[in-house]
């Protein structure tokens, strides 16, 4: 089953039109399908195949290659803890352990109530603000185990419909890679990045 709607067909056509070849729309359409179903489903991938003019097997081949396409149930809050070299040097493993402890969700899994998915990831480009994480692909820099625990507890108790990166950084973050400049009100819903016509982008509360 997929929650892909006729309205999404129209939006998909607009995305296909952004490219010289419909096949190029496979990646954006996978995000759309994942947003509709809360994770990738077989039927969702079939819809992507129809719209992009390729076979379902070709869509699955693409989906399985990239870490941000996730099959099955994914949490409302995807906590991605970077473990690459700059974060490693500043003790990202303790931050990951704090996320596991605070959510009760092991690395690479989704909790039974569907709130959290916790994962370790490779470099997210926040090395100057290490150790860093992403929540629904929004950056939070300058973490430590206490900040990480507080962030998870806050999400768990507040249960926001969507998250805003600036708010999380303001509340729980520390040193940043650089001055972010003015805030961005966009909100993000797991497990899809908050970008334009095919992502989870919403406006803040």
């Amino acid at each position, binding site marked *: 089953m997929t929650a892909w709607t006729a309205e999404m067909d129209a939006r998909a056509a607009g995305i296909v039109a*952004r*490219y*010289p*070849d419909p*096949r*190029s*729309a*496979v*990646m*954006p359409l*996978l*995000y759309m399908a994942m947003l509709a179903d809360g994770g990738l489903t077989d039927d969702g991938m079939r819809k992507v195949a129809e719209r992009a003019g*390729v076979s379902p097997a070709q869509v699955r*081949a*693409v989906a399985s*290659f*990239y*870490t*941000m*396409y996730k099959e099955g149930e994914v949490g409302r809050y995807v906590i*991605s803890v970077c473990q*690459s*070299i*700059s974060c*490693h*040097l*500043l003790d990202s*493993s303790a931050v990951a352990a704090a996320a596991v402890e605070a959510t009760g969700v092991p690395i690479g899994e989704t909790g039974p109530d569907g709130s959290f998915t916790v994962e370790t*990831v*490779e*470099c*997210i*480009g*926040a*090395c*100057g*603000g*290490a150790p860093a994480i*992403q929540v629904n*692909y*929004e*950056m939070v820099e300058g973490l430590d185990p206490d900040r990480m625990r507080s962030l998870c507890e806050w999400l768990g108790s507040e249960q926001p419909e969507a998250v805003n*990166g600036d708010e999380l950084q303001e509340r729980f973050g520390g*040193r940043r*890679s*650089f*001055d*972010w*400049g*003015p805030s*961005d009100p*966009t909100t*993000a819903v797991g497990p899809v*990045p*908050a*970008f*334009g016509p*095919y*992502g989870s*982008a919403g406006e803040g509360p």
Partner: protein
Amino acid sequence: MTDSILFGRMEAHPSDSHTLARYEATGGYQALRKALGMEPSAITEEVKASNIRGRGGAGFPTGVKWGFLADTTPRYLVINADESEPGTFKDRQLLERDPHQLVEGIVISAFALGVSHAFVYVRGEYTRQARRVQAAIDEARAAGYVGKDVLGSGFDLEITVHLGAGAYICGEETALLNSLEGLRGEPRIKPPFPAVEGLYAKPTIVNNVETISNVPWIVTNGGAAYDAIGPEGSRGTRLFSLSGHVEKPGNYEIVMGMSWRDLIHGLGGGIPGGRELKCWIPGGASAPWFTPEVLDEPVTIDDAGRLGSMLGSGAVVVMDDTTNVVAAALSVVRFFAHESCGQCTPCREGTGWMQRILERILSGEGRPSDIGLLLDVSDNISPGLEWPPAMTTICPLGPSAVSPITSIMTHFRDEVEAMIAQGVAADV
């Protein structure tokens, strides 16, 4: 002024450097007006004369690359914003804080190259940055800088932002093109090079964000002015991302030629907590490591190469004297094992072997034969273990995973041997 070609606007106007209004108020899109009055080939000549070398990692001269573009249409320009090399976050700042500088660079470059459709491939995790670039394109379109008949010149340009989905390998230009075509991000065998057969098998130029962000300045001031900045072979300013055990991590725009000491201990503020510098990665996770005996060497592309490493993506990762180098090497190797696309056996299998051997040593179960085994596996990926690396693979990802191995074996072999001899699990 010469050391702020790229960061000047955001430093002077931190509250709105990303907006069209601020960009225009600070001279923005004047370079485009100038360029549209030039012969396209004359723009390419200016870029050639600037001697700017690509800022994505390989350091290939940009103007020369442009000169390879085959003379058939359609042809494409693709901006590589898939910044994923561990330690690197410079393009993120350019995308986020001065996206119009990039957009103007794209429009000028597309005009020079005879391109009517350009793409910006942004890594999936750079959501805020992708939003900023899309907003800048939308603003530029409304103002007539992008779209049909740019500024009444008759030149048409579409720009499509494409979001990746978490695959480092898509920073390799042919993998990026496959990804943009809706395929798995597997590198292609070269030749043919993208300039001849790229996106949809059409002639394509793939350039890094920082590279193209320099183009407006080069057009405004001329290639010769850019070529007058910095030492030969490393012209212009360059962004360095400092991270790890350094007091003031961040992105720094510098004129190349300063010493590593001035970069790490000067700009970077030295090592925190009164500790000592042990080693650093000079150009992203793919680069062999440097140790303090080269601190007074100049930071240039050619000097880094002479010393057996590279400036790569400009990522300087600093490690202090408390660093367990085996654990650090494991972090880098694990990255490449995770990001291997799996096409080539030496890389797919070898990086996994290297990861498991390093994990074994760290767990206290290391064997005396493990050092030879690590080097043997490495040699199967990069025969001879030399720099620049030979390859048994389609792309340089596999050989990049060898860099931390050769680095710890060259500089810290005694530490590895001691860890194996003690047979105690490391506390890291």
